């Protein structure tokens, strides 16, 4: 069991772990690219125009940023995404939010919202997910403290903001 006080892994890091470890490393070392891509402005636009009546973007401990919270019978943690292309990454990111909150005595369920697809997915945090997340956190911490992983070119690289950074020297 990891004490919650020394885990400083963010939701974005969990997400990037499933997308690309080079991206995870660069992001974790604050090597960020300028935000001029259309993809980024699209994501920002969806955030600003969806669920306008709800209080949005709740940042907890500077570690996780919840898109919005709803209270029905229990607490629902909502995360808004554009498409299901990175579904696995989205799921673990949200499960990590649930895990993080549980460490602080809040039990909640997660909802992934895809407003453009008019779809939702409900997530519950189980024991096996918790164990998986603890392993994940360790792996991320180890990765970030070692050398930058060499980039490997995959089809999804072309849309990544680090594409020119990774492959512009070839």
């Amino acid at each position, binding site marked *: 069991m990891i004490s919650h006080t020394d885990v400083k892994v963010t939701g974005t890091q969990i997400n990037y772990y499933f997308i690309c470890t080079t991206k995870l490393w660069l992001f974790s070392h*604050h090597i960020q690219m300028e935000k001029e891509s259309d993809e980024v402005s699209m994501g920002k636009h969806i955030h600003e125009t969806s669920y306008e009546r709800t209080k949005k973007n709740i940042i907890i401990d500077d570690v996780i940023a919840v898109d919005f919270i709803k209270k029905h019978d229990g607490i629902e943690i909502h995360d808004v995404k554009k498409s299901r292309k990175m579904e696995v990454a989205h799921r673990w990111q949200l499960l990590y939010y649930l895990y993080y909150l549980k460490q602080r005595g809040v039990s909640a369920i997660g909802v992934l919202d895809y407003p453009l697809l008019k779809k939702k997915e409900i997530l519950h945090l189980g024991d096996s997910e918790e164990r998986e997340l603890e392993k994940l956190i360790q792996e991320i911490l180890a990765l970030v403290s070692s050398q930058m992983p060499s980039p490997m070119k995959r089809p999804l690289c072309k849309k990544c903001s680090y594409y020119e950074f990774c492959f512009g020297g070839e």
Partner: protein
Amino acid sequence: MKTNYYITKDGVLRRKENTVYFIDKTEQRALPIQKIYAIYAYGNLSFTSGVVSYLAKNGVPIHFFNSYGFYEGSLYPRETLVSGDATIKQAEHYLDGERRSILAKLFVEGAAKNILRNLNYYSKDTNSLTSYIEKIEHELGQLPGYTTIPQIMSVEGHIRDFYYSALDCIFPAEFQIGERVKRPPNNKTNTLLSFGNSLMYATVLSEIYNTQLNPTISFLHEPFERRFSLSLDVAEIFKPIIVDRVIFKLINKNMLDETDFSGDIGNMLLSESGRKKFLQEYHERLSRTIEHKGLGREVSYQRLIRLELYKLVKHVLGTQKYKPLVMWW
């Protein structure tokens, strides 16, 4: 697509609502904020504090040049891409003499190889260039044996001397360089070189702003030489690719006449029309694109500068050794 704006006239820069205007006696021109990448100011420019904060907020630098076309300073917006890790690693590469000289040599090597590309292009028609090419290659061959910055700098100096002597073989009498004289330039080509190199310096600086690199930590040049000396290092690679080729075109195509220069000999200045011609060609060259094999897409010459900086970031982070850009096209 964002673009560079070059202002050669005197006037006022003002913000009205969310638009930037350039105003002078005859016109009022709107510069849409989403389209401005950087502003290069050659005239006397006054501006309001409103426009300054607005440009800074949008990450737009303004570079100022004096009437000689010399770089005077930049209004450099607050850094937004900051990485403590990258800065420390960059400083490490400066502090460690061996690591510093590796990078310093690579800048000289890249510059020299691009110079040779330029000369080889002309040597097809002019045999007299061959001996200069050999001399430059010989100098370049010495480089691996050197370790100190003054030694490396002297190789760079010799290569430039040979280069300019070689160019005198192809330039018409009116544009002979003779000796490279900078402050102030004493003949037409020296004027063009100073003007272009100052411009290059500012262009590289705009790109550095968009990376995590710290512009004051340099390797070939001394950090105390000028405030943003990393810009001088990286500009070495691009001067032959961009500035020199603009000058070749202006001279070889006979695009400049007496009205493009002003002042007496020994006090050569580009007139407003001369500056306009230079800036137009320079801009055209920065926007020109080539197919980049590694990326599998077209990139502009200006973007190549950014890619060069990314290569430097990777070098200091220890993931990929820096290899300077040598024109492959």
